[in-house]
């Protein structure tokens, strides 16, 4: 009870009562969200902040006032969010394009993309802006990397049966891309299992090492490793730095880190992680509109690999950066708002890092609150969480399949106005009364304590009502979306 009172105070009572809270009351800052004049560019992540002008809670609510009211939106991980000031910047860019497209594409677009790439380069601590290409989304980046492996098979650089290694929880669309390119061209896929709930980085690392060494032991050449930074479902933070190190030690030629969630959610440092390829979406946790992402390619790798955007245009052969900067007539405005996003992010205390830390702390707190309320557990230790955490659902709800998970998701959405993803976890052999259903809760700056209370109460009500997924009717097939949505 005391904990509940404290949490109530933390989220509802003005900050002067709780000095440890994230957002301070401040006078509204002058808003200047977007510089259309490319001469005064903001190319550096601002580190200096004025304490007296941090964004206020009211301003935050106003920035997200376009979110559907009455929904507990605790699934930021799937589609992200975009504040009103960035949407406004987006529209300004769109109107600029429509006003005089020839001039825009020739004279504005290249500069705008370079500005955005420079912002990203600083965010991820890359050495050189030439290592950073902007693409629509991680799915596109993955296609770029995998296509060059397909050509390697076709052109005889790789032999039939050479392998790609990935974890079993690799995102479904990425597995499809591996099938469409790597496997179709003659490759072989190694899937590394792991236990969930996860208990430590060591167990993940050991599973990976074991699988890798076993395959090498039977003479398999491992050409590519695809490793998540933050897994989708079930969600936790992978020890990427260690995994990349092992790959290099064991002679894996190329390492692609699928970091769809990472930027804005965990620390992202190319010099620390040292992967060959690293791709992340910016519309999930970095306040960009749909859709913009980046593909980082280490310089040393670019010199001997032939990477191309699959949509071939005038700049084919001029390097990936140029190729991705023009993929035919498009509305490139999502690519251009990075400076405006930086302005937004820097209105928060501690900027992007401050937001990340507070999201992490809040989601862990909420996760523990829910686990306690339901008598269940978290899916991983807090230090392996990002801004998302898996929380076990009471076993009596009977989540016994992916279909059950979808049914429960739909029920929570339609009956309780809670938007949250549900994960079905296969029980381990011999486990008694295991927890097989997990929710993935997210915390982003627009979330409120009551969002999580609503989820807590909804589940408690279902338990009280004796609800079981087996009782729900089968949904029509068209209502069942991809089971492994981000």
């Amino acid at each position, binding site marked *: 009870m005391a904990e509940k009172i404290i949490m109530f105070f933390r989220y509802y009572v003005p900050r002067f009562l709780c000095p440890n809270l994230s957002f301070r009351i401040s006078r509204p800052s002058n808003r200047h969200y977007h510089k259309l004049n490319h001469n005064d560019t903001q190319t550096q992540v601002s580190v200096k902040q004025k304490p007296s002008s941090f964004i206020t809670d009211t301003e935050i609510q106003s920035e997200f006032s376009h979110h559907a009211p009455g929904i507990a939106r605790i699934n930021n991980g*799937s589609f992200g*969010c975009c504040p009103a000031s960035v949407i406004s910047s987006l529209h300004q860019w769109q109107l600029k394009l429509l006003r005089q*497209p020839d001039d825009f594409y020739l004279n504005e677009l290249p500069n705008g993309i370079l500005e955005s790439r420079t912002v990203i380069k600083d965010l991820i601590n890359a050495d050189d802006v030439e290592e950073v290409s902007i693409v629509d989304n991680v799915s596109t980046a993955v296609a770029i990397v995998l296509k060059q492996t397909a050509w390697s098979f076709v052109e005889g650089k790789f032999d039939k049966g050479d392998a790609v290694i990935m974890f079993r929880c690799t995102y479904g669309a990425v597995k499809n891309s591996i099938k469409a390119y790597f496997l179709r061209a003659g490759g072989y896929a190694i899937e590394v299992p792991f236990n969930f709930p996860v208990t430590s980085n060591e167990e993940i690392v050991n599973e990976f090492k074991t699988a890798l060494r076993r395959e090498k032991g039977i003479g398999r050449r491992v050409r590519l490793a695809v490793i998540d930074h933050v897994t989708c479902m079930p969600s936790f933070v992978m020890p990427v730095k260690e995994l990349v190190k092992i790959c290099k030690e064991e002679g894996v030629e190329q390492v692609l880190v699928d970091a769809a969630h990472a930027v804005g959610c965990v620390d992202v440092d190319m010099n620390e992680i040292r992967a060959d390829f690293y791709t992340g979406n910016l519309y999930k946790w970095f306040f960009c509109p*749909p859709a913009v992402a980046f593909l980082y390619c280490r310089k040393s790798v670019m010199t001997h690999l032939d990477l191309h955007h699959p949509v*071939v245009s005038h700049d*084919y052969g001029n390097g990936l950066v140029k190729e991705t900067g023009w993929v035919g007539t498009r*509305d490139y405005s999502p690519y251009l708002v990075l400076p405006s996003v930086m302005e937004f992010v820097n209105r928060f205390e501690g900027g992007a890092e401050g937001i990340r830390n507070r999201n992490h702390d809040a989601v862990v707190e909420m996760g523990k609150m829910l686990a306690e309320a339901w008598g269940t557990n978290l899916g991983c230790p807090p230090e392996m969480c990002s801004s998302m955490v898996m929380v076990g659902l009471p076993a009596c709800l009977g989540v016994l399949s992916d279909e059950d998970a979808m049914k429960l998701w739909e029920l929570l959405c339609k009956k309780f106005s809670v938007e949250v993803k549900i994960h079905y976890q296969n029980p381990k052999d011999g486990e008694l009364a295991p927890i097989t259903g997990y929710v993935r809760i997210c915390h982003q700056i627009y979330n409120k304590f009551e969002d999580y209370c609503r989820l807590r109460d909804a589940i408690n009500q279902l338990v009280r009502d004796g609800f079981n997924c087996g009782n729900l009717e089968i949904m029509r097939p068209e209502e069942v979306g*991809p089971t492994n949505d981000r």
Partner: protein
Amino acid sequence: MASSPDHHLNGDPKTHISKKPKLSPTFITAAEIAAEFSHHDPNVARINNGSFGSCPASVIEAQQRWQLKYLAQPDHFYFNELKKGIHQSRTIIKELINADHVDEVSIVDNATTAAAIVLQQTAWGFSERKFDKGDAVVMLHYAYGAVKKSIEAYVTRAGGYVIEVPLPFPLKSNDEIIAEFKKALERGKANGRRVRLAVIDHITSMPCVVIPVEELVKICREEGVDQIFVDAAHSIGCTDVDMKRIGADYYTSNLHKWFFCPPSIAFLYCRKSPKCPELHHPVVSHEYGNGLAIESAWIGTRDYSPQLVVPSVLEFINRFEGGIEGIKKRNHETVVEMGQMLAKAWGTHLGCPPEMCASMIMIGLPACLGILSEKDTHKLRTHLREKFGVEVPIYFRPPKNGEVESINGYCRISHQVYNKVDDYYKFRDAINQLVSEGFTCAQLSS
């Protein structure tokens, strides 16, 4: 301002939007048209609709409503609105282009993407040994530069042999095109080669002419070409587009050029045929293997709003007398008239007969301007934009052997509903001024 009903935003499965324009005399007025395009830069004579198209304010508004709908609750939008909306757009397009079945219609970002989709499967054909190394792909010399690069990236790289069909310019008749095409096919079949794919423009970009695609497709069928891909980037809203009449295997056109959609949206039509192999979108996502139309409708998180406004665009078009047919006809007549006016004013000539034009036309520029290279065309274009406020692309035509004092520079003017006769006068006067000043491209810095 145009009315903007919300019925299509409420998930109303109105799959048959009337193609018929209004009969009663409440057609859009000149003042309303001007208002619809008031976001265009008023200082620019925008006579280059062909490059990047145009989008009226009422459609932009509809697009922003879709964007906000998504942002309000993206999960709900993804599961309940997106598929329906895309299906509705596809259904409208299917009717517009006289396709047999909506399954034949996929929506993609642009014709460049469509080309990559078709050519990727050709590349697999070579890589998976369905085709022999050296089998041919035929394309026009005037194929769009990006498409030529795509052919290089997929066909040449995979072992295919590329044949370019040379075409004269200026052109006098369709017969010239047909004759050259037939010759190229012969070359393609030489030494026991198979011609696996013919890539044919419907309307070439630069220089711009309407190609007799129906006849060329017929010749391809007679000569045993495996697959025919028509790159019709400009066509829809510009010339007649009838899949059954044209008879190609694949046909793509941008809707953001001449069909008033915002950037960017195109369709790729794939004839339903047991011989046609499975095509895939290069950006692989959850829907891989469910057919191209379904794959293309979800290529990861994106802003799909340009693909969802097709019903709003049709409403806009039907405010014009004769609907899209009326717009096409008037654009054609006006651009020919303006072309003839300019040719007369400059003492030059058109690049092809009026019947080989659609809503764009090529006009020779006075030889004294000294357009002697492609670089000169870029310089002159920039000069016209910056000094005279005229936006128009220029084409360099290399002189043939023995030609003396030929016209080597041609401009491509477009006409769309927002254009005014003053736009063309501004251009006429700019060129006349350059001539009277003794201007040559050599005077411009690189």
